[in-house]
């Protein structure tokens, strides 16, 4: 979709839908929301719906960043401690890499 051709209310509702959908463990959706509407919310001449859009974009951006940090932290911890955790780690693993850890 080309949002430059959409009406402002439609843009706002799209932003809002993406925002609320992102609460279902969907940081990717938040990231897309933030990036897609960034220009609309911050670098365009103001229009009435922009204030709310700014809020959504900012919260989406922060949310996705937090998720990213959390996921990276967990991945690092898991890959470092996988061999130590033994059986639990095996149950959790999707792919167990070959070779000596």
């Amino acid at each position, binding site marked *: 979709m*080309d949002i430059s*051709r959409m009406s402002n209310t439609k843009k706002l509702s799209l932003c809002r839908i993406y925002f609320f959908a992102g609460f279902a463990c*969907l940081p*990717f959706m938040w990231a*897309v929301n933030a990036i897609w509407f960034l220009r609309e919310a911050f670098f365009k001449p103001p229009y009435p719906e922009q204030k709310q859009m700014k809020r959504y974009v900012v919260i989406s951006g922060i949310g996705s960043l937090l998720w990213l940090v959390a*996921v990276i932290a967990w991945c690092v911890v898991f890959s470092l401690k*996988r061999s130590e955790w033994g059986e639990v780690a095996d149950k959790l*693993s*999707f792919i167990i890499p070959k070779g000596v850890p």
Partner: protein
Amino acid sequence: MDGHVSIEDHSVEDGSRTRNSGAAKEPRATNPSDNDPSTPMAAEGAGGPTPQPPPGRRPLTEEERAARLEQRRQRDREHMERQLEEEEELVLKYGAQHVIKLFIPVSLCMLVVVATVASVTFYSEKGIYLLYTPFHETSDSVAKNVMGAFVNAFIILALVVVLTFFLILLYKFRCYKIIHGWLIISSLLLLFFFTLLYLMELLRGYNIGLDWITVSLIVWNFGVMGMVCIHWQGPLRLQQAYLIFVASLMSLMFIKYLPEYTVWVVLAVISVWGEYTVWVVLAVISVWDLVAVLCPKGPLRILVETAQERNEPIFPALIYSSNILYSSLTMAESSTPSTSTTDNGGSHDGGEAVADPLQQDHHAPAPAGGVGRPTISTAPSSSRRRRSSEAEAGFGPEWEAGRQQREAARQRRVAEHGEASAPDVAGGGGAQQPQEEEDEEERGVKLGLGDFIFYSVLVGKASSYGDWNTTIACFIAILIGLCLTLIMLAIFKKALPALPISITFGLIFYFATSYFVVPFAENLASEQVFI
């Protein structure tokens, strides 16, 4: 069936629209200021008396009135001619631009497939086959394998034909819900399950460990975002990227699950002859494509014409659009905003917009600024749909289902998509809307996702033999074929199958390269002769 290429040409509609509105406006504009010529015109037919001129104006003589009328007609005609010329130029000009816009996604798709085939051995391993190809090329005799390959190919072709007709029947009887449900289940399967498999093989290939939590998070996000982008609304680039990815996934499935010799190392010599099925299937399919699209009684043509009659948009998820179509009207199918154009250009081809699907996806706003008719069209390109897996042996006949849908979508898309008057379809509301709202449409080029898939299958298969010369030769052959197809599209302005030319070139180049060029180059290199 797969390759449909069509150009959406809204400029003609725009032109006709402006023409009409211009023509409509003129008499209206002149009426209030120029009562004298108009009323006598109306009265001429009836032979009524000359009306009283408004005070302060002297009555025009008959000759002056006639001259004025003649002038106006002349102006209109010139205006129309000029517009027609402009439009014709534009069609060809944009044809070239859109060719480039299609090159990028096709190349990307092939790149993904080749990269995966080269790095992840899973897709080159044989072992499990589709239920529909019972001949697994395990015999020692070349002739038997060829026969087996042909039989496999014809079984698959028969399946595709049957499913295509089934889809056409569904479409004709307006069972849209079934088709939609089918498409959604297919894309769900594709986006979640096959992505999971792909991720698994990728990780295994690179020996990276991941846990279930992370994997499920990744796949969940990826899948949901994909569904939203493809079937609903999302950023254009993202939609296009998803469509390319989905097409690559399908290609990889084909490369893996069509039969080949299973024992590579032992039967090294015979493996040169082994992959007949893939090649035969490709050849047969391109012939079918030609027949189905161009024959008057072909099923796809029926689809196209039905879609034309009904002025309906094409299903999303089956085509990749190089531009997005924007419509202020909502369509019956929520995910398919169609372009509303007037039907003034009824005689012209109109519909052929060639874009590409799945996707899609995508892109840049109209280059038509110079003409003053900026149009942006959003055609939802969508991924291929697949049916839920049925075959015990593997992934079942999804690809056939996908193909029909692709064909169907292609057909419809190709057809009078541009001509479709969305107001009619959308349930009436649009009729009231002024034509000027629809100025936001751009010509886009659409290419069926099936085309992506088969191009990628060809290149992927070529690359699975490990020889880069062959791979690159096939890649270039396909691009040349695509170029030619698009040129023909610009000339003929009709829906065209995109497969035959490209696949023919690809096959010729593949066999020529692998049997002539490669040994030649090797010999030259070994003798240190450089040309």
